[in-house]
């Protein structure tokens, strides 16, 4: 069984790659969506501040973190779809390695999120945004973003297994958006009413966004959040990874 753990996980990952190849438009839309949000917030809502200078430097790391948070939805949609179609039952009735279904899902989602980061960073660079930190700090920032995405991924798998039906995903979407926006991704907590600012500073995503700004050497970025940006996703993983694995095992209950 375990001898096939790698092969089966790779087969499951390849399944997602084959889906992308079948539906390139869907993949492109998924990758373009964060870019659209960036432009929308930069030009429309950012208004006078525009996409130049200080606000742009503030916004891009925020959008990167927000994109990782929104990845949760994609994970949920994919898992509930397979559950609902009975595809997961078929996998479970086959002599596959135990974890391959979830590992394949993780690998494909992480790959897509990494691609989304590349696209968004590329668009940022095209808008004139520059990283001021060194290459090691840059890679550290990307690592923190992917770590946050990895935590979101397992929360997504867990919620999908609890919800079971694709229709339930909408309910979660309605929650993900405000949680995503109740962070410092788009605006400084100082500019918010006191209580709201406190909530926003507590949001794990805010730590990731702040730490990323710091590592990118964004002028005026707060420092000292890298620790929290590591600890929060790891804590979420410590809770949701075992919950998701247990829940998957409980499909046989």
């Amino acid at each position: 069984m375990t001898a096939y753990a790698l092969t089966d996980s790779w087969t499951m990952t390849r399944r997602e790659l084959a889906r992308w190849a079948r539906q390139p438009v869907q993949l492109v839309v998924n990758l373009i969506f964060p870019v659209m949000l960036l432009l929308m917030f930069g030009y429309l809502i950012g208004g006078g501040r525009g996409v130049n200078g200080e606000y742009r430097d503030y916004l891009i790391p925020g959008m990167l973190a927000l994109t990782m948070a929104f990845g949760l939805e994609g994970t949920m949609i994919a898992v509930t779809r397979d559950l609902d179609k009975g595809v997961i039952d078929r996998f479970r009735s086959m002599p596959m390695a135990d974890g391959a279904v979830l590992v394949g899902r993780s690998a494909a989602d992480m790959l897509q999120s990494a691609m989304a980061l590349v696209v968004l960073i590329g668009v940022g660079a095209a808008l004139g945004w520059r990283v001021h930190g060194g290459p090691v700090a840059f890679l550290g920032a990307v690592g923190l973003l992917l770590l946050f995405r990895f935590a979101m991924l397992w929360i997504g798998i867990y919620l999908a297994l609890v919800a079971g039906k694709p229709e339930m995903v909408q309910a979660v979407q309605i929650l993900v958006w405000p949680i995503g926006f109740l962070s410092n991704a788009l605006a400084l907590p100082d500019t918010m009413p006191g209580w709201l600012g406190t909530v926003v500073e507590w949001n794990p995503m805010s730590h990731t966004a702040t730490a990323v700004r710091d590592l990118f050497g964004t002028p005026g970025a707060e420092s000292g959040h890298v620790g929290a940006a590591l600890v929060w996703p790891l804590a979420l993983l410590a809770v949701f990874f075992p919950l998701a694995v247990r829940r998957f095992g409980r499909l046989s209950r």
Partner: protein
Amino acid sequence: MADTAITVDGAEKRYGGKKALDGLDLRVARGTVHGVLGPNGAGKTTLVRVLSTLLRPDAGRIEVSGHDVVREAYAVRLRIGLLGQHAALDEELGGRQNLELFGRLHHLGARRARARADELLERFDLADTGRKAVRQYSGGMRRRLDLAASLITEPEVLFLDEPTTGLDPRGRAEVWDSVRSLVGGGTTVLLTTQYLEEADQLADRISVVDAGRVIAEGTADELKAETGGDRIDVVLREAGQLGAAVALLPLTGVTVDTDRRLLSAPVTDRMEALSGVVRALQEAGIEAEDVALRRPTLDEVFLHLTGDDRRVKEAA
């Protein structure tokens, strides 16, 4: 036993307070098609899920191809194929891609998985549509592909859970043909269905399941014989006269279908019953459209066994 493909002794499974399986027993001989017939909620799907290692039973000894479904789940999975109630396929991928995916997950290796996919597409008459996304398939095609996917490794035991539910008559005929063609190959098939005709057409033996247990078992003919011999059907011109006819006719155990203006009863002596009914109707001046003798249908066996015929009578 070598010639028993499926052994179920006292299977129990609860969901909350509800018993989905309540001491179910079953033996299926190798190389046969066994029908599991029952109304919705009788426990058919739960049984298939337990047999295919998807669900853990609460109690009972359950073996498939000589392996315990709980302790030797992996050994069972190597030997079974499963066709669930809904086509379990990746809708965005093509037919060939689906079969290749499942072949690889059965560890056939890339080349054999590809060859097997081609073979199955050919066999299920899907070779022309192998590249199309499954999303664009018709219901019958999708079901055939689903069936092909459950046959990747030529399983010793194949589970079909309501294989034709939701299909149009043509799709149903397609699936029936496919199942029949399998039987020659020595595969043991366990088929659940709500359609008596399906069990009648495909199964060597039938277990009638209700409330999580087997309430009758035998060949279709044995089950029909159990309900009684021949029946007489009388269709009246006026539904309003059904009550009067039931009171008047020399018959017992009469069931009434008001919509079809039909009354039906078991008979022992065919000719005596026929002449008696015709005479009694003429004397009472009740007009009949049709009077006919026939063998019981499996439907009647089913309703009789599950106790639904009493409800029909009370309602009438």
